[in-house]
């Protein structure tokens, strides 16, 4: 005699969606670069330096930040980055 044996799934029963990564651009010329401050101490100092270096190379830069590193970025900030920038540099610094 065979008995049916099963357990119930404790997970959310979701499956990850695989998407191909966007290829990195060959050059940053003409692109808008988002510099994204995640809210850690001194992230802004680090990004100031990066911005200065990019400025020397005449690259177009926009700054974004999330209010605190304790929380995920608000969706509207992510939407703005997606809308206004071509590439993003997310900085971590302590």
């Amino acid at each position: 005699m065979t008995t049916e044996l099963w357990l119930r799934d404790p997970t959310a029963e979701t499956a990850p969606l695989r998407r191909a990564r966007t290829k990195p651009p060959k050059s940053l010329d003409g692109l808008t670069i988002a510099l994204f401050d995640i809210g850690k101490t001194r992230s802004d100092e680090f990004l100031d330096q990066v911005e200065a270096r990019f400025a020397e190379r005449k690259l177009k830069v926009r700054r974004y930040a999330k209010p605190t590193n304790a929380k995920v970025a608000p969706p509207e900030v992510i939407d703005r980055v997606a809308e206004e920038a071509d590439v993003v540099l997310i900085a971590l610094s302590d």
Partner: protein
Amino acid sequence: MAEKLEAKYSAATQLASRRIEYGEHDDPMEVCFARGWSDGLPVTPPTDERILRMLKGTTRAPNEVIGRIPPYLAECTVEKVAINAVLAGCRPEYMPVLLAALEAALEPVFTLHGVLATTYFSSPIVIVNGPIAKRIGMNSGLNALGQGNRANATIGRALNLIVQNVGGGRPGEADRSTLGAPSKFTCCFAEDESDPEWEPLSVARGFPRGASTVTLFQGHAVEAFVDQKSRTPEALTRSLGMSLVKIGHPKLVQSARAVLVLSPEHYAIYREAGWDRRRIERALHEATIRPGSELVAGADGVGEGIPASRANEQVPKFFEDGLMVVRAGGSAGLFSAILPGWLAGRKREELQPVTKEVRA
């Protein structure tokens, strides 16, 4: 027997979670490990019978959605809570406490995503107040922060398993803790409310006496505090201040909160002198104020520290409400415990402990 029959004849209509079938020669405990449902310790296989029994611990419908669990913001129903409670080894009567703890964890100001994803040591610390604690047999006495009590051990464990299994927050993936801490398995205890003169944590946080509550704190356990010689509240306060300023790093301030678990023998020193919660907390706050010149980066030849611009300030270790005192522990031992908080609390209003009332 009733649950056996119910499981056989009506589980299919009552339970929505998918079945994970296994072979007759498979060990269900090994199936749980293989599926990644464990925190590293054995879990109780979630059979229909056990889940149905667990659901009897709450009046809430199995399909009620409690919220979305980070990091992947997956919807969590009462049924999923019950399945994870089975895994953790809970009894059905723990369900109301577990559900309240989960609701507290999902308040935005608890920042559960950050607590999970941080490189720091933190996880949810669960503190239970009110009559429910006794009713379900929780430990607030000897070894309250240790092993051996089923409710203490499994409620905290179930909460972490929900984040892992429903939210997808796994160590090495979204959980980026550099070293972790044993308290990431579980850290849950009840406050000792045996002294009617003591204001319980729940009351201090705005709930009426007699209400059952769960308070969640972002931290890890434990740092020992030993003072076997101070006999006055002033001396004990100064002594506690010396230990409290060390959490994280002695030169880091206003970035972490802390819970002080005051043992009966230490509490007796305050009680005999007529000090209540407010007075103790205020005095401890003052005992952690130090000259900024000692704390600035570079002072004492140590790189860590606060900005040089604060050298002339008198700097408290915590924000005004950054220290919560809780009573617990066995009757012998002039030891107390410090539960240090997550260091991400630099922005006081962004990161707070959360208290929720326990409902049926």
